[in-house]
């Protein structure tokens, strides 16, 4: 494709993670490979009135280890996790202040409802008839996390926040890729964050979409998703920039596809998500034969897993049986906007290390989910190209293509 040669190649040079299965890239990756579950009884709010009580909270996160205490009170949970993950990613990519030329470092972040915990606190105070301090309203705007990243680290490039719900991470990484190819930045801090939220817990419970004990994507007896929280950050750079400073490169981003179902607010459309995957492959300049691994959206709901499997078959046809399709939501639960960022990180490490994370809790195959879901154990296998799928409320779909980096 002629167009590719005119624009920069985009590579990943750093990773930062705050998750229920580990804080930091190594802890996260090791847990994924061990098939470790991050699900535990919910503690951050009272679930006695709900149908379910489990979730993927990040219980070991100590924000004061990452952010000076006096600034913490102006930052809600999502912002804190986003900042911590950014610090870890910058360290991982060896991006020190003197290495960074601030004018050309951008931030592209995503969230479902990053500031919902602030809205919840305001409601608590309203109901109690107590005064609501200005600090809460200060951190209410949705772009708090993205803006605080730019503020704390002194970045002066474009600063974007995408609120495309459960696909937001992919949207953010996608735009970061565009910014680099358009030459508007040399480095982009890309990723997403979302907190554990009682509002979302209520909503999904009312949809009867939440599993009571475990999340079992693609399993015949799957009972639903698991609410969770987290933050995933990737450092994206132009290849020129990475090579110039001698950075270690994890993987390359080849392209992406977006689509909109334009049909239903909550049930994904097979046609819409299939089209999204096809667009991603087209833009990346690859064919269905080239895909070695698919990181599924795989929430564990009856509708998603069935429709996603059907869409994969529609796109990949008979090749489907040879392509491993796993969902790390089986371990993390659904971290909302952060999910596709954390899944992109899993794909990045999969292509780097040639190991595919499993779908855990898998017991019974479902003929309606006729895919190889890499059940229960990580698999050592050459992975040159990975496809990261994500589907959001509103029918907002995004698929990202990652490739093993070669000169």
């Amino acid at each position: 494709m002629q167009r590719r040669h005119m624009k920069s190649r985009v590579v990943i040079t750093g990773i930062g993670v705050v998750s229920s299965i580990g804080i930091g890239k190594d802890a996260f990756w090791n847990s994924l490979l061990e098939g470790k579950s991050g699900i535990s009884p919910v503690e951050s709010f009272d679930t006695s009135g709900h149908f379910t009580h489990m979730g993927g909270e990040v219980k070991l996160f100590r924000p004061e280890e990452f952010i000076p205490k006096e600034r913490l009170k102006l930052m809600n949970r999502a912002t804190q996790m986003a900042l911590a993950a950014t610090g870890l990613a910058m360290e991982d990519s060896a991006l020190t202040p003197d290495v960074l030329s601030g004018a050309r470092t951008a931030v592209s972040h995503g969230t479902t409802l990053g500031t919902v915990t602030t809205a919840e606190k305001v409601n608590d105070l309203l109901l109690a008839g107590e005064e609501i301090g200005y600090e809460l309203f200060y951190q209410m705007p949705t772009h708090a996390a993205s803006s605080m990243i730019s503020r704390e680290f002194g970045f002066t490039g474009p600063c974007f926040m995408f609120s495309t719900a459960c696909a937001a991470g992919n949207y953010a990484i996608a735009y970061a890729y565009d910014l680099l190819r358009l030459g508007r930045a040399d480095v982009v801090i890309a990723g997403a964050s979302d907190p554990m939220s009682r509002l979302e817990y209520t909503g999904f419970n009312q949809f009867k979409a939440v599993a009571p004990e475990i999340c079992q994507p693609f399993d015949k007896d799957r009972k639903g998703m698991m609410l969770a929280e987290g933050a995933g950050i990737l450092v994206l750079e132009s290849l020129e920039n990475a090579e110039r400073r001698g950075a270690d490169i994890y993987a390359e981003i080849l392209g992406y596809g977006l689509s909109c179902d334009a049909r239903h607010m909550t049930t994904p459309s097979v046609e819409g998500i299939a089209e999204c995957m096809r667009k991603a492959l087209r833009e990346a300049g690859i064919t269905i034969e080239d895909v070695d691994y698919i990181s599924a959206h795989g929430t564990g709901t009856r509708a998603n897993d069935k429709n996603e499997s059907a869409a994969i078959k529609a796109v990949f046809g008979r090749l489907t049986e040879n392509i491993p399709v796993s969902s790390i939501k089986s371990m993390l639960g659904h971290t909302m906007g952060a999910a596709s960022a954390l899944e992109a990180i899993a794909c990045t490490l999969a292509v780097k290390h040639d190991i595919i994370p499993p779908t855990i809790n898998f017991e019974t195959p479902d003929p309606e989910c006729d895919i190889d879901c890499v059940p229960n154990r990580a698999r050592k296998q050459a992975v040159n190209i990975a496809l990261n799928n994500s589907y959001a409320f509103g029918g907002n779909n995004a698929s990202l293509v990652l490739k093993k980096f070669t000169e």
Partner: protein
Amino acid sequence: MTLARKDTPGRARAEEAGRDIVVTGIGVISPLGIGREAFWKGLEEGRSGFKEISIFDTSEFSVHVGGEVSDFDPESYIGKKDLRILDRSTKLVTSAARLATDDAGLDISDDNTHYTGVSVGTTFGSLHSIAQFDLTGLREGPRFVNPSLFPNTVINSPASQVSIRFGIKGFNTTVSTGFCASLDAVIYAADFIRLKRAEAVLAGGVEELCEETFRGFHTLGFLSGADGSPPLCCPFDARRNGIILSEGAAILILESRAHALRRGATVLARISGYGNSFDPAGSTGRGLCKAIELALGEASLDPGEIDYISASANSTQKLDRMETEVLKKVFGRDAYTIPVSSIKSMVGETFSASGALSLSAAVGALNNGFLPPTVNYSERDPGCDLDYVPNEARQKEIRKALVISSDPYGSNTAVVIEKTRR
């Protein structure tokens, strides 16, 4: 000081004129009027969109005035289907989308849906839905919350409803960057056209007036009249003491020129350049200077070539002063002769929708040859001494306009539009 570099990559790209990004239609739902013509007329007449707020109870606050959209009948724009469960933001933006597609004569069909997209800026889009959903759960218990209201709580639901109601499948994105949200959404849309992922995009912004947002701005001390004095929206005026909070939606149809020509669309303006820059220290002006320089550079224009500046000054001490100083820095002596006005003096502060409304106003200025005024201007602030087109619109042929947005967290966005051949 010249910033124009005729050999910039921006210029080279623009040379492929078919790839020019043009505006072919506008839909506006505003406190000044509904529809592009009514909106432009309201601006030209210098009318005020402020009134006693009726859509929620303001008795707990010391301010009761806002830019509420009145005489708004969403059913007449989007029909009756599922109207009852849609929130106000969604009704505003889907109605604006209807007006925009009608204005552009753009029909969405199987032939074009896969390369048509939606890009909407909204930051508090669902705050009212979110807060009420949570409150119901707290008051009645989580098992008594209406599940059909849950989809309204995601911030991308207004934009998604545009896709659902108009059958737009290419892509659908929601940008939530506060005061910069709708200009950022427009930039995102323009980039998609530039990168050939889309030929047409419904781009703009929306923000609804609701008690939750009002409470926030009120507590943060942003609102004029919080001290009990009559609220006043007077950008650049010495008496300025806060915003009048407002609501609205504006959608612009962006297309590649080639696509517009192919279907015989009327071209209203061309987007010739844009830029973003972040100010880590807040609103020092450095970021806004940079954003403007980037936009002018991409448009290959010297600052002195701009005919009109649509400012984001919102009757606060800080922002209005900062913008004035930024314009002096970027434009030098020309800052004193290039007219700059703030439509927020008439429309109020619509937060995420403000950029799209300002852009729509600037397109009106280009097409109808008038400069929207900064109304309520009577007391001069020596620190704000530019030509703000005080109180009365001015007839003037203009060809190039700059639209700017600045967010207190630190984002800054600038867009240049130009008159272009139809």
